[in-house]
């Protein structure tokens, strides 16, 4: 049985190198509960493609019909470009589902994890290395 243990071992090693550290910037993680995740469905009001931080601003309508204006923070365009983001990837009016870590003080702010776009495509920064290189791609 030991002979067939090579395959899972290799798979494990490959997985190890495919994994990548989460992006962090300017210490903003201190403001978020990184051990908790939430999911929100909303409408994009602005997709901010800017240095050194990008942001998704979006409205979420709660069960009472109240509209809450949310903001999610992301890394810089260099990192995001390598993860498939671009200046055109979202626009005001787009219906999105967004996943992230909530702020510690309960404010409607989010540390971005991933987003599902109107066409069902998912964008994440998880597979991007700290310097913007994609973990599993040879350019």
């Amino acid at each position, binding site marked *: 049985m030991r002979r067939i243990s090579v395959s899972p071992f290799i798979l494990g090693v490959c997985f190890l190198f495919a994994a990548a550290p989460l992006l962090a910037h300017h210490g903003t993680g201190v*403001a978020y509960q990184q051990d908790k995740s939430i999911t929100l469905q909303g409408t994009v009001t602005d997709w901010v493609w*800017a240095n050194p*931080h990008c942001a998704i601003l979006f409205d979420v309508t709660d069960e009472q019909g109240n509209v809450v204006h949310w903001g999610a923070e992301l890394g810089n365009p260099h990192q995001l470009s390598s993860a498939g983001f671009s200046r055109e990837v979202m626009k005001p009016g787009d219906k999105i589902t967004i996943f992230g870590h909530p702020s510690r003080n309960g404010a409607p702010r989010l540390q971005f994890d991933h987003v599902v776009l109107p066409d069902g495509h998912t964008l994440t920064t998880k597979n991007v290395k700290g310097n913007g290189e994609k973990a599993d791609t040879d350019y």
Partner: protein
Amino acid sequence: MSGTALSTFACDVSIHRSLAILTIVFRFCGNLSRGPSMRVYFRNAFLIGAAILGFSLGAFAQTYGTKGYSPGAWKPEELPKDLATPKPYNPRDLSGVWSTPTTAGYFERHSLNDKWIDTKDKKVPPQMRSDASPPPMTAWGKAKFDANKVSYGPRAVEPEFNNDPVSQCEPLGYPRDLWEANLRPFEFVQTPDRVLQHMQYHDVWRTIWTDGRALPKDPDPAWYGYSVGHWEGDTFVVESIGYDDRTWIDHFGNPHSDQMHLVERYRRTNQGTLLLDMTLTDPKTYTKPWVAETITFVNAKAAIFEEICSPSEERRFNDEIRDSSAAKPKP
């Protein structure tokens, strides 16, 4: 796999990768000695080949540095094919785009000798799980350190309440901009009379004069100081002084004075690896020299990307996202 890729593979892989491959090879050899069937041989050989190919593709990509891939601009298929031809290895040629390794589990350096803090509390965010160990500070240095409010390390406060120059897009200075090589690479450009260190973040060009001049006697302080360099064998030695004391050494808030003297020793040990040893001497701030642990850089895949920290864009981010995510101070 080409010969070039093989040689690159041999010299560029990280220690982690080397150990992993050795482990696979040993396991395969162990299987041979126990006499498995030919089917198992072929299957294992295929798996090992695939693993090595996978690893070598990663190393191959790290080799060229200036292949020209530019996020948001040129795509690989838009570039001339011969960009992929590397120059022969020359230990006295530092040119290329360099970043720190980003393999999984690699500790991202942000100071001369920072380390993980051992904590099992999962609620402690990653930003607070590391710290630097500077030499004992003078009274002047300690007062400056205490005045620096940070969002990294054990003293971290929410970003709204720090006074980190980076949060306002103020100049990072040197060596702090170097630590950004975790996120943003730098490029060395060599000319007959100087070496230029082009930092991606803030788009800074640091000039290291190699025309034989000495350091200036009494320079006006500058954000990135004044630097001269010379070769000692295959080691490029850079000495710098004249730094503006408003910048921080690292995001932990460790300070420096205008008397900071840096000595950097760069060694390109193979095509894809650049090592840096650094000693910081600043008697106004520290009671003895601060010696860095050797810093490793590898060739980056992408070309330098324009990444100017825009004050107006940062201000909007701070207003609309950062400041409202932080708990307000109690009245």
